[in-house]
Structure formats: structure tokens, C-alpha cells
């Protein structure tokens, strides 16, 4: 009499757990280890397309992205780190809280240089003409992927449960998790 309820309870618990597994695991992982550099598999290089660099200019080219940012947009920690780095490295100086100013808005559907993660990564690494500095070599690739994931969350490209909530700061607009998805429109402004 006692075992059937327990066994049924056990099965129910397993079913619930496995249905949560698909979403929960990846979102909540905190991978602190530094991702491997993989110099053994050299990647093609690209020139910097901006004259501007932070601190002192480097002369080396940047490496093209490996992959399309897998593992960053599904991971809440990485996106939150991207938000922190956006604040730290003064992206708001040109892009404000996403509304733009000296630089273009990041919360809209216009992506002059492409909205795919690899394209945003390249934009940050190589820089772009008309003012976007080239950060290649000044930030680690891990950091740039985190920034990429965050930038894409600003126009609602990420899942609602992974996008960040509000910051502990003055709020200019709604939290990224509450923004509706702006499907990217390619092409110039």
C-alpha cells in the first residue's frame, strides 16, 4: 500500500526534473574557468577597421570569431557580465543606455554592420569607421562574447529568462528581459 504512491511520486519527480533540464542547466551555469585559447587551431585574421583604440594602440590584426557565440546567449551569467562590462568600459558614452547619441542606437532594429553574434563580435573587435573603437587585444575574447550577448539582449533578441533584469542604477528604460524582440532589419540607416 505504501510503495505504489512512493513509486508514482518518484516517477513524477523525475518527469518534472527532466522537463526543466533542457532550459535550466545551461541558463544557470557559472563557468568561471577561462575558455581555452585554442592557438593550435589558428583562425584567420582581419584588419582593424577603426583608427580608434582604447589606452595605447596595438598594431596587430584581430582574429575572426570562432563560432557564433554558442554558450553565451543561453547563459544568464554571461549576459549579466556583458551588462557589467558595458557599464565598465563606458559603452554608454556613445550609445547611452541603448538609445544612442554619438553612436547609433542599440535597442532598435537597425544593424548597420549586422546583428548576428559573430558580426557584433567583429564590430567590437575590429572597430568600425565613424567612431567605433577597435577593442581587439584590449579585451579578452570571453569578455567580447559577453558584451555581444548583452548588446543583442538590448533589442530583445534573447530569451526572456536569460536576458538581464534591471540594473541597480538610474533606469532609462525597461529592463532587457521585458523588451519585445526587434527583428533585425539589415542595411544602412
Amino acid at each position, binding site marked *: *500500500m505504501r510503495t*505504489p*504512491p512512493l513509486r*508514482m511520486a518518484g516517477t513524477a*519527480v523525475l518527469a*518534472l*526534473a527532466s522537463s*526543466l*533540464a533542457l532550459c*535550466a*542547466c545551461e*541558463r*544557470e*551555469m*557559472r563557468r*568561471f574557468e577561462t575558455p581555452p585559447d585554442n592557438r593550435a587551431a589558428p583562425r584567420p585574421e582581419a584588419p582593424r577597421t577603426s583608427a580608434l583604440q582604447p589606452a595605447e594602440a596595438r598594431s596587430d590584426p584581430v582574429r575572426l570569431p570562432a563560432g557564433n557565440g554558442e554558450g553565451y546567449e543561453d547563459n*544568464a*551569467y554571461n*549576459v*549579466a557580465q556583458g*551588462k557589467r562590462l558595458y557599464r565598465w568600459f563606458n559603452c554608454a558614452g556613445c550609445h547611452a543606455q541603448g538609445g544612442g547619441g554619438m553612436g547609433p542606437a542599440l535597442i532598435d532594429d537597425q544593424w548597420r554592420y549586422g546583428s548576428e553574434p559573430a558580426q557584433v563580435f567583429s564590430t567590437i573587435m575590429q572597430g568600425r569607421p565613424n567612431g567605433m573603437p577597435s577593442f581587439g587585444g584590449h579585451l579578452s575574447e570571453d569578455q567580447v562574447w559577453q558584451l555581444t550577448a548583452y548588446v543583442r539582449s538590448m533589442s530583445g533578441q534573447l530569451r*526572456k*529568462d*536569460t536576458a*538581464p*533584469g*534591471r*540594473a*541597480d*542604477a*538610474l*533606469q532609462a528604460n*525597461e*529592463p532587457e*528581459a*521585458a523588451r519585445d524582440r526587434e527583428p533585425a532589419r539589415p542595411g544602412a540607416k
Partner: protein
Amino acid sequence: MNDERAMQQQPGRTPAPPHLKDGPGPGSPEAAALDATWRDPPGLLGWLAAVNHKAIARRFIVTTFCFFVAGGLLAFVMRLQLARPGARLVGPDLYNQLFTMHGSTMMFLFAVPVMQAVAVYLLPLMLGTRSVAFPRLNAFAYWIFLFGGLMLYAVFALGAAPDVGWFSYVPLAGPDYSPGKRTDFWAQMITFTELSALLEAIVVITTVFKLRAPGMALNRIPLFAWAMLVTAFMVLFAMPAVMLASTTLITDRLVGTHFYNPAEGGDAVLWQHLFWFFGHPEVYLIFLPGLGFLSAIIPTFARRPIFGYTAMVLALIATAFLAFGLWVHHMFAVNLPELGKSFFTAASMLIAIPSAVQIFCWIATLCSGRLDFKTPLLFALGFFFILVLGGLTGIMLASVPLDLQVHDSYFVVAHLHYVLIGGAVFPLFGAFYYWYPKITGRLMSERLGRWNFWLFFVGFNVTFFPMHLLGLRGMPRRVYTYQAGLGWDTLNLVATLGSWIIALSALLFVVNALRSLRRGAPAGPNPWGAGTLEWATESPPPPCNFHAIPVVHGRDPLWEPPRAAADGGPPPFTHVGGLAAHTRELLATTVLDARPDLRVNFPDPTIWPLVSALAVTVLFIGSIFTPWAVVWGSIPIAIALTAWFWPRRAETAVHLRLEQGP
């Protein structure tokens, strides 16, 4: 034979005769009818639909005990990591999840629920009635608690457990510094468990006030009942604070409110006030039932009624009131006005006085009694050593200057375990050994019980006493590792060795409990020679608790037989008879004097509490991910609650017939 089968097929219905009434003792057809009426329906569906308080309480106790073991295992892993400096057994992220889960499990999933579960089992038996008030609500509260606990552990199994401490301070737990849904699961677990606790509190209060045996005036109820009554009132006032706090945290994280955002007018300290306004009474919610256990165990094993009953009751009530005036002592390191903090120092020290009254009354009882050194008494004696030591370190922590040195260090870890384990877990184990014969009909092994006690006592002190010294030597709390050469190495290793002894003791308890189920000596109705009403009925009690509700004439009804009538004849009233045996009917009595007041019809077993709990679970878990879940999730809840309360024609017909012709 035919009748019995018919009775089993339709619980609560007997074919003929239609108006059996209770009163005759066990063995009579009326008693059989009563048992059939109050028994849970058979099969899986019957198990899920049960509303009998003993059935719900048994599974509730087993569930909370499973959480206790889980929480203990988490702590065991933490101690393994801390045994050596710079150990790499567990990294910082997992460690933070471990201590958050350990604290949350012990505080929310074990300590308060187990006390409520034991109360739900014992109170009707102690008070001389057949059920708790609101039996379906009681069942719902259990299911909600279970689902909340399962949710938390499911999330832990997925590596996504909350990792910001059981107290979850903002801004660390806020949306900016705690990405993902980890903290949201914690906050929603709060909602589950606090809802369960609030509902159980309502059940307890109503049971103690209205469902007592005639003659059991309020100043005759067992001190355990007083302890649970006072605890339940505390729950009503304390739990809403944490529910409010966790709800505002969820809205900050989910929809971007600014309760805890200083830049937009919020305040991180608001969280601390809300949380600790609940958090301090919470520890008294855990402590007071322990005091109730002691007041049940000590008189029995000192073979005399408790000394100072009235003082004990007043001490419980005083403790409860004072407990709401202490919360800022968790915040002494915050820049709050010093004069205000001094007020909380005074209150924190003065709350020791009602506890001192209780301790001295127990000692007076033991002094003037004749002692029976069984295992329950051993655990009660363990309380005196451990709780008093913990209470005295509490006096130290009550002082602002002292607290500013040892706050958030291992000194506090030592203190809290001394008071919680000494004040609640030791009495709880004593209570297990004391009431196990009543619940199962068999005695636990005394030999294993002694080993259990001594291993626990020694292991506990070896684990936690060194932590006082660690705190004084500067070791903070909630650290996943520490550096070598700071003078903390040996003490940490000793504490870890102690944790092995505690683990062994817990294992012994489980072995004892399981083995005694089959091989324990059969216990009669009253193996300890105790005086309270639960020992008047069989072990285990029949489904209806009492075949004839007793009339009570004193505080220890089994010790004080009813007095003879004025003319020397037999005592006028010893039992109540005439309640229906074919439907669940109870006698409600007045609050103060327990004079018979109403005959109340109680509901039959029903699946709707479980279904409602599932619907509420869907709403709660959904609202972690989207605020719309509150809207969509209300619909299944409305349907389930409607079905729950919809009157059943057959049941109502039986009740109406009883009203017209009792």
C-alpha cells in the same frame, strides 16, 4: 461480513442502521462504524485524497525528516570542504549553493514544518477530539509544502540552486548581481512554505480553541498545546513580512520595480528590516514547540505534574511578544542610530527571562520528582546543556559592541546551532522517541536510543564548540575556503570530525526507527505512564482517535481520575456519547471553558486539496518566468477551489438529516 465490505466501499456510509452513535467502547458495532467512517479510503487515490489528520501528519513528518537528512548531508559536504585550508573539493559556486540550500532547507523545509506536523498529529489526541479543524486545508498545506520543497531540490539537482544565502540580502540577490532564475526559485520557495505555514497556523489555532474535549478548560490544556497555540499566533504575524519581502524581490527581478534600488529611491536595508522582522520570530517559531515537547516529556519522566503551569504559560506568551522586538540585532553592523540599537540590545537580553522561568520550573519539576531515565528524558537533559550554552552566547551577541566583533563570524554559526539544535532538535528527537510508540504501536530500542543520544551530544559539541573559537580568531561565515596559517586549520578539522559523529548518530536514529517498526516491543496505550489524553487511546490510535470522547477533569486527565459525585456515587460525566458514527461529526466546545457548543460536520476525504495544490504550484512556478502566469494560473485554481467547496448532494443530505434529528 457484508456490512464490512459495504462499509469499505463507501467510506462514511453504513447501510443500516442509519443512526449509529458513538459512545460504546472498542469492539462494538458502533466502534467499527466509527473506524470505517474516519478511515482513509483504500488504494492510491484514497491515499492522495486522505484528510485524516494522522495520515497527513505522518507523511508530513516523514517528508520533513527527509529534508532534515538532505540538509544534513549538505552540511556534511560543506564540512568536508572546510576540513583543510585551500581544499578544492567544492568550488565557490557550488559551496554557495550548498550553504544556501542547507540554511533554506533547515529553516523553511524542516524546522518549522516538522513542529507543525507533529502538532497536527498530536493536538487532536491531546485535546480529546477526532480531527484538526479544517482538515482539507490541512491536507492542502501539506501538498503545497511538499511541492515547494521538491521544486527547490529539483532546481538544486539541475545545478541551479539559489546561492545567495538563506537570507538572500539585496543587492547581491537583486537582478543586477544574481543573474538567472536561481534567486527567483528561492523567493518562490518562500511563498510555498510560508503559505503552508500560515494555513497550518490557522488549523492549529482553531483546533486548540474550538475542538477540545468537554471540561478541558483553557487552563487545563497541555503545555505542548499552549506552545503550539502561541507559535501559531506568531506565524500569523511573522510570515507575512517575509512573503512581502520575497514578493517584492520577485517583482524587482521580474518586472523591474525599484524596492531595493537605491538609485531610484529604494533601499537595500529595507530588505533586511522586512526579512529579519520575520527572521527573528522564525527562530522562536522553531524554539517554542521544542519547549512544548520538554513540558510534555519532563512531567512524565519525573512522575509528577509540571511545576508552575501558569508561569510556564505566561513565559511562552511573553517570549512570543518579545520575539517581535528583537529583529534589529541581526543588523547591528549597519549604520543605524546607536540609541535605537541599544533598545534592541535590552530586548534581546530581556527575552532570556521568560526562558529562564521555564528552565527553572523544569529543574524544580525534576528536583522534586522521581526520575525514569528513558531516552526521551536523556534528550531533554541534553537540551539543558546545549540550549543554555547557546542562550548565553546569545546574551553575548545581544550586546552591540560584542556583536560588532563576532557578527557574521563562526561565533554566530556556533551560537545558532547551539540554540536551534539544543532548543529544538534535541527536544524533537526526545519527542520522536516519546511518541513513536503512540504513532506506530511499538517501542524504539532503548539501547540504540542511548547510543543515538550520546553520539549526537558528543558529536554536536565536538563540531560546534570549536566554532566559537574560530569566530573569535577572525574567521568569517559563508566562506568556501580559508588560507593556511591563520590559526584556523586545527579547529576546522576537529569540527569536521565532529560532523562525522553527528552523521553516525543520525544514521543510528534511522536504523532504530525502521527496525523498531517491525521488531520493536509492542507498546500498549500508555507505555510511559503519562498523564495526557493521547495516552488514553490505543497505540496506534484508531482512525477516529477515541471511540468515546472523554470528559476532562484536570490538567493530566489520566493521572487525575474524575472525582466521585457529591453523593459518593460514580463520577457524573466521564465520556461524551451520541455523536454520529456514520459520518464525520465532531463536538466543538467553547473557547475558555470547553463547554459543549456545537456539533460540526466535517468533510469526507477528497482529492481537491491535492488538485488545488497542483494548480497553485503551476501558478507559483510559472510566475517565476512571467508575470502573466498570475493571470492564466488563476483559472485552474478557481476551478479547483470551486470543486473543493461545491457541496455534495449525498453528504449534505446526511448532514441535514442529522440537523433535523440528531
